[in-house]
């Protein structure tokens, strides 16, 4: 994951290659019908078309709501389980098999099970998102608790810090980098899973748009929906997390300057 991020920060010097790529894509698209292989210009036109219709925003909002609900559930339960497994050895031995099994069930399976169990409802996509994302968060936080400085915990108990003080001032700050990376992993997974869950399950949402246009073999419309949504999610990721990270880690000299 980190290597991907590191590369993402190097984009600006590659802006030229990016422009060349766009041009090549546009040229290539001239040889195909736009419904099969749209160029960037066609794609932009389709996006304008989509977002001039106010009802499109409802579709986006619906998907966003599902993403954030599933994401929130996964973060809360995942953090709780990660902490439990990190702090209690027995819990770790007991639950790690469960986590492995959860990690192995493909998202499509949850999407379908959700539909079979809850019908066409909000519960199915949210269940799918949280069940897929949960184990990743739990594992990440669990690794974080393994990296906690024992010396600081000892210091806390010498000074008789009670449980709540230990949590707030000693444990959680040390877990912050892990909580933070969990948030990012969770968000980037959530929206991709949401599309799968919506495509095969619940009514409405971007996923439904994707599969509908897929069934009509309209690559242009499918890409217009997919790419525009991708841009939204990347923006949320960059804006929300970059800015927050700077504040949360102000105590680190190398980041503060």
């Amino acid at each position, binding site marked *: 994951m980190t290597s991907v991020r590191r590369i993402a920060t190097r984009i600006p010097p590659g802006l030229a290659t990016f422009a060349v790529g766009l041009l090549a894509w546009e040229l290539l698209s001239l040889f195909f019908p736009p419904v099969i292989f749209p160029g960037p210009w066609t794609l932009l036109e389709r996006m304008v078309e989509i977002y001039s219709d106010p009802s499109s925003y409802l579709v986006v909002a619906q998907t966003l709501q599902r993403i954030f609900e599933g994401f929130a559930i996964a973060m809360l339960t995942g953090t709780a389980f990660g902490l439990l497994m990190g702090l209690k050895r027995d819990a770790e031995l007991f639950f790690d098999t469960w986590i492995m099994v959860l990690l192995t069930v493909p998202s499509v399976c949850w999407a379908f099970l959700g539909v079979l169990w809850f019908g066409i409802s909000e519960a199915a996509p949210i269940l799918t998102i949280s069940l897929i994302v949960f184990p990743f968060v739990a594992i990440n936080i669990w690794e974080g608790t393994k990296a906690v400085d024992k*010396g600081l915990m000892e210091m806390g108990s*010498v*000074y*008789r*810090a009670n449980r709540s003080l230990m949590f707030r*001032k*000693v444990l959680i*700050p040390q877990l912050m980098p892990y909580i933070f990376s969990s948030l990012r992993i969770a968000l980037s997974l959530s929206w991709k899973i949401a599309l799968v869950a919506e495509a095969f399950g619940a009514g409405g949402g971007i996923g439904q748009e994707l599969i509908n246009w897929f069934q009509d073999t309209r690559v242009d419309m499918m890409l217009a929906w997919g790419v525009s949504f991708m841009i939204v999610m990347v923006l949320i990721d960059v804006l929300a997390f970059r800015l927050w990270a700077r504040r949360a880690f102000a*105590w680190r*000299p190398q980041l503060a300057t």
Partner: protein
Amino acid sequence: MARVRSQPEVIRPEPMACAAIAVRDLTKKFSKPGTDSQFIVIDDVSLSVEEGRFVTIVGPSGCGKSTLLNIIAGIEPYDSGSVQVSPRQGTPMHEPRIGYVFQSPRLLNWLTTAGNIEFALEAQNVPREQWQERVTRQLGMVGLAGQERNYPLKLSGGMQQRVAIARALAIEPDILLMDEPFSHLDAITARKMRFDLMGILAKAKPTILFVTHDLSEAVFLSDRIYMMKTNPARIFKEVAIDLPRPRKPEDPRLLDLERDLVQEFFSVLEGTG
């Protein structure tokens, strides 16, 4: 009116127990993981530290000194014997307060220096209105006045250790445990810190149990020294140092004493083979 009713009796420490720290026949074993064999970390150790005194345990690395401090601090269990820490006389009865300065500063890097001291104050349930006064006073005492809002990672190693000392003093400890607090610092900083520590102690007068492997540090700082050896980990000698304070590290009497003690260590270490 019968005035002489049985009054609620405050249990006063026995004369013998006026020691702030009393350790008797303490033994601690570690079982090696995966085997049944046990390894004796501390073998039948007794010691006492009288209130207001500076007592040092000197010994080679791995002789169980730090374990002993941890047991006294109540963060490590032991197998047999007794450990008693008493609150300062003349203060209202309370759970004894223990300050601890570790080898490394063990500061919470995400809190300011003031925040680090307040952490200890909050842990000890010191009323919030006293915090600011205590933080200012203690930071001033260790020579860090005005550094309240700074983060530990922006301070030098010596300054970080000063914050750790301020944190320990801020809770007005009944006893102060120090585990080789200057061993991670460079020689010059360590020397300055020892001087300053003497100055601080002259004002704060806490009871100190100090651990080090450095004999010159021990003779310079202490009222009394316990000498410890390994295999088995035992105290083999107790030396009182009745030299007046303030002392100078180059005082010939200290140097003589140090040389004698080094001799003694060598003979004991060779004796155990």
